């Protein structure tokens, strides 16, 4: 992946920085320039917001057929997590047996390696989720 393309998203991927609409209060992740609910009204009024990283599993799957980049992780759990602030994210669930993941489970964010551009390339880090402490 092109170096600047990943670097640009680092604050969101490392620290769950999203936005809150200054017009209606809806929280989006990743940050948005235009609120999907308010449209033009919201332009210039979107405030950066750090999300706490706590949420609930909305749905999940156990992936067996993985792309090459995720070969060492398979089979792994991919899930959609609804964060307490309202925004939803897609990522992996770790630190738990795959079979124990359930819809409704509480999770918290962890900092993990997402991949890299081969053995010589830049390493990409970001959020994954583990059972809430």
């Amino acid at each position, binding site marked *: 992946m092109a170096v600047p393309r990943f670097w640009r998203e680092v604050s969101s991927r490392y620290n769950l920085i999203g936005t809150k609409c200054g017009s209606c209060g809806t929280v989006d992740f*990743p940050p948005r320039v235009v609120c999907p609910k308010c449209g033009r009204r919201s332009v210039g009024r979107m405030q950066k917001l750090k999300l706490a990283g706590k949420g609930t599993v909305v749905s999940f799957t*156990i992936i*067996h*057929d993985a792309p090459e980049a995720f070969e060492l992780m398979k089979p792994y759990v991919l899930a959609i997590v609804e964060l307490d602030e309202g925004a939803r*994210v897609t*990522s*992996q669930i770790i630190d738990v047996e795959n079979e124990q993941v359930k819809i409704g489970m509480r999770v918290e964010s962890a900092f993990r390696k997402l991949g890299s551009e081969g053995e010589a390339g830049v390493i990409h880090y970001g959020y994954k989720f583990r059972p809430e402490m």
Partner: protein
Amino acid sequence: MREVAVIGVGETQFGELWDKSFRDLGIEAGLRAVQDAGITTENIDAVYVGNMSAGRLIDQEHVSALVADYSGLSDMHLPTTRVEGGGACGALAILQGWAAVASGLHEIVVVGAAEKMTDVGEVKAMEILTATADQEWESVFGATIPGLFAMMARRHMYEYATTREQIASVAVKNHRHGALNPNAQFQKEITLESVLKAPRVAEPLGLFDAAPLSDGAAALVLCPLEKARRFQDTPVRILGSGQASDTVALHDRRDLTTMDATVVAGKRAFHAAQKTPADIQLAEVHDNFTITEIMAIEDLRFVKKGQGGPATEEGQTTLGSRIAVNTSGGLKARGMPVGATGVAQAVEIVRQLRGEGGKRQVQNAEIGLTHTLGGTGATAVVHLFGRVN
């Protein structure tokens, strides 16, 4: 706006076509459609080509000009346009072609779509397909297209008590239909047991819940309805179309078990055609995965939300019952050259409406529907076709 008719259809075999290049496929489907329409190349005013990802699959962009060129049309200097929208590009190309003819911009238009998926190897092809999801916020985190549809399946099972068996019955039905289709990639029936026991891909979906990544192409010839009878004894009319978009990332959708883009595209198409779901006898819906068909028949309002599983299991969508879904075998059995699917679906509907369905002919076929998706539902296109009596 003028009424538009389909006067010619053509398609290639779908499958792993090692001997055929992307160009070969495009030309073959196009020529068949042109021959079926009984027109000469001089009659063609414009070409629309649906293709999802030639740039990454065969390192080739600008495929609209390329296909026209290799079809012998370069001296005519026709307007050629490539249309892309994830897996919906074929259906989008039909819509563009329809708009061109309906508006009077062009008279006779060839709409084709082709995809060559097998040159890069399966793993790479899957990665390329994943580019129709949200790369930055889904794919980078380990999402795959099967994984995203599997999460929809799991949520559907959670909310509506849809069972694994009900979901799998889609594959069984579509293989039964595909066995009657000489152009289908898979012409063998499969058992429910084999679907349930197939290698796991992304739970709860397994290998037999997924359409294959295939090579293939299909094409239509469109012209104004008022001229159609010069070329065809049995022209088929495009009654109405609807197109809609939605969020790209699955996690941003309003409801994981409903494709709002399908709902809206369907409503728009029915409204344009002044028809209702009850008027449909047959439909080709996007079954890239078994669960997708279950959601589609609900979202197109053939059955109530949450009832897609039982309805399929009970045979309500099989050939011979109240609505025949995916008589071609669907993407599952007929094959899925991703960008070409929308046009291939239209080819099946047109043939059925003409009475050319052979062993899989739907009785009393008057109005047929095609439903095509892009990505995990960020784009949906619905076309309604009707027999011209």
